[in-house]
């Protein structure tokens, strides 16, 4: 099926096996999840504007309401927006185009995975309908998750659906990248975004089944009366945390690697430059895959464990800064002596470097056992992971949409509105999270809806953070509505408006038609998506 078919037919979209349409379906679903999760974030921030009950109905059930907001915000942002936004939307739309393939390896499985994802989103949204709303954060830690009156099944089945969708997507794209590259395209000629996806999807494929298994046992404990996580009956409550983070820390790299890949594409194209130290950056990505499975314990420093495990995991956690450092230097170096065009994708690109720097540097004390015991359960870690994972990755999705908008929609994005949206987003993010860093160091705990027992000045910082959240919300509304308006009324885009050397710009129409490429793509050994010096 073509993306460029005449008229809109719902059935064509429902039964589509075209990777580009599937990518757009992922984008719509992930933005929907993002919007609702964003509303939850606003509720959380409004509640924290002042100590005591602000908008929760009363002090006795306030905690439950707050937990439901936290649950949906966390689960929908990570499982519904960031991962599907990058490995669903961006990977689907771009992988076949960048490697010169006509489609993915298993188109029907691809269609199944997007609808599983949508089913997961619908299930997550049922949170607001059922009377016993899930209130188990996105982590679902027992024993609370087993004993709470909240609906655990909704959480578990949402994880199952989205997890299964992720596994299918991973299988599909990995096979596509390995076997369906255009003739002549070697591994060291791949786009950095392809490398980002390839490495991220390996992590996803290997680790998601562990999460699925862990939550399934949780379901059995809650509803079938088993005792897998019940220490009183031979279960191991800490094991759940281990299994959960065995997937969920690598999940950070499932988000981080394609996000970096997107920024590489933008930097190289807008600076008209080769990727600085391409091989080092690729090895950095592979290095992250290798180390990612050995760092999860830093989420459990305060749980009972032998010191040698703590120290070992501290070392591996710090070790991961080496490949990340290689990638960051490579990204920054790509700008060196480049003819830089500062347009909206590049705005997000430069902001990403700043977010990476702040998020990365604040991660170092958290990797250290001694510091982490103090900071790990405070709003410091909350601000840290929002910088490095939440905002960095969200900016990468926005940058991706803005950068490939001409290719996807056939129209140019309205630059003025996009810039207003960007500045509001960027300023708002800083106004929101810097105060949380400051009071986090002073001991403001995470996940507390009422902080009246803590110093009164925390309230002032929370007020500033809440104002920041509303600035971000305004920026997001402008950004997303600009996409819709520009898709309808933007100026017509040429096939390659950025002058890129990558296949999706040089060898396809705008938007790409059925089969992606008018002619079969055959490349030689000298071809590179970053051949700007020639």
């Amino acid at each position: 099926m073509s993306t460029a078919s005449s008229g809109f037919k719902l059935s064509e979209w429902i039964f589509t096996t075209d990777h580009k349409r599937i990518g757009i379906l992922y984008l719509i679903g992930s933005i929907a999840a993002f919007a609702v999760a964003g509303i939850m974030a606003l509720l959380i921030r409004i509640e924290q504007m002042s100590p005591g009950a602000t908008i929760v109905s009363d002090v006795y059930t306030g905690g439950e309401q707050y937990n439901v907001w936290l649950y949906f915000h966390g689960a929908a942002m990570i499982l519904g927006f960031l991962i599907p936004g990058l490995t669903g939307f961006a990977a689907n739309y771009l992988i076949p185009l960048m490697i010169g393939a006509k489609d993915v390896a298993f188109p029907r499985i691809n269609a199944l995975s997007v609808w599983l994802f949508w089913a997961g989103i619908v299930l997550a949204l049922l949170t607001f309908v059922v009377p016993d709303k899930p209130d188990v954060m996105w982590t679902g830690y027992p024993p609370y998750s087993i004993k709470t009156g909240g609906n655990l099944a909704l959480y578990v089945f949402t994880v199952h659906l989205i997890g299964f969708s992720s596994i299918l997507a991973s299988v599909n794209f990995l096979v596509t990248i390995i076997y369906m590259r255009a003739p002549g395209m070697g591994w060291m000629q791949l786009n950095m975004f392809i490398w980002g996806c390839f490495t991220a999807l390996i992590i996803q494929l290997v680790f998601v089944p562990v999460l699925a298994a862990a939550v399934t046992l949780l379901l059995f404990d809650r509803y079938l009366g088993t005792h897998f996580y019940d220490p009183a009956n031979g279960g191991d409550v800490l094991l759940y945390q281990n299994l959960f983070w065995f997937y969920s820390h690598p999940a950070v790299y499932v988000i981080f690697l394609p996000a970096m890949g997107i920024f590489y594409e933008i930097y190289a194209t807008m600076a008209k430059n080769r990727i600085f130290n391409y091989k080092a950056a690729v090895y950095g990505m592979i290095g992250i895959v290798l180390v990612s499975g050995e760092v999860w314990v830093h989420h459990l420093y305060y749980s009972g464990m032998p010191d040698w495990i703590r120290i070992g995991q501290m070392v591996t956690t710090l070790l991961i800064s080496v490949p990340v450092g290689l990638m960051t230097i490579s990204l920054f170096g790509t700008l060196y002596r480049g003819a830089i065009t500062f347009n909206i994708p590049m705005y997000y690109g430069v902001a990403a470097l700043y977010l990476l720097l702040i998020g990365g540097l604040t991660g170092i004390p958290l990797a250290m056992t001694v510091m982490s015991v103090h900071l790990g359960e405070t709003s410091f870690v909350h601000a840290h992971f929002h910088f490095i994972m939440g905002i960095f990755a969200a900016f990468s999705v926005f940058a991706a949409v803005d950068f490939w908008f001409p290719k996807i929609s056939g129209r140019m994005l309205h630059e003025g509105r996009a810039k207003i949206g960007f500045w509001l987003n960027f300023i708002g993010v800083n106004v929101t999270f810097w105060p949380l860093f400051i009071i986090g160091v002073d001991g403001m705990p995470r996940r507390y809806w009422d902080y009246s027992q803590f110093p009164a000045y925390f309230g002032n910082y929370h007020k500033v953070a809440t104002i920041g959240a509303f600035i971000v919300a305004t920026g997001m509304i402008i950004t997303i509505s600009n996409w819709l308006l520009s898709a309808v009324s933007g100026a017509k885009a040429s096939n390659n408006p950025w002058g890129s050397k990558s296949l999706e710009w040089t060898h396809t129409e705008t938007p790409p038609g059925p089969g992606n490429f008018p002619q079969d793509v055959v490349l030689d050994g000298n071809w590179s998506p970053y051949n700007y010096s020639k």
Partner: protein
Amino acid sequence: MGRRLSCWLFLVIWLAGAAEALAISKPTENSEIDPNLFRIDQEKYLGIRFGKELTLLQEDGTPLAFEKFPDRPFILVPAYYTCDGSCFTVGGTLRTMLKDVKAVQVGVDYNVLFVSFDKNDTVQTIDSFSKYLGISRERTPGWYVTLFQDPQAIQTEMSKLGYKFFWSPRDKTFFHPTVVIIMNAEGRVARYLNMMTASAKDIELALLEAKANQFKPSETVDYLVSLCYSYNFKEGRYTINIPVFVGAGSFVLGILLLLGSLGIYRLIHRRKNTKQ
């Protein structure tokens, strides 16, 4: 009349006798001991430090300051040495079981410490108890049979561990739990094991857990094996930790999915090429 009276008398005597017989055959309520009285609420006591400033007496009367006790995990066995039943059974069972514990070695990696909770125990009773179990300082290094130097400390120290016992004057015996307590090198409670159900494997796992901070590279495999078990508070022993296997299986499944899908794609592709 006389006959009728005799019959009545016989009936009354028979009923009285039967009633007495029933009363004798039915145990008095006082002799029934509810085992739950001795149940140790383990979660409350894990990590509790035992005998920080305590001095014990050994079989030759020499004091053993607890702070000078070898810096390694130990099995604490509360007992009394004039016991005619369970203490000897527990001690004997432990002696036999520890021969099957291969991953750690008594006297090298851990010790066994008997302490008496009976204030009437003396160095003489220690001697007879030790002889019965075949324990001596020379022949069984790492085994200590001791009593409290200060009998006043017995109740305090045993209560700290949640260990309950009482003397029954009628039965002339102590009622007490048949547990051994696995302590880490700091002298803190790591695990309680019920000696009626525990096996050598349970003891080995508990000791590995207690010395987790000090394990040597040569014990890596033993330590990894110990992760496959989790302690069952209800039963006082270790049981297989199923989620570990489920988690590991899922991880392998992920890898197989990748390899399998590559294989399937190649197969489909090869068939297509052959047809063409």
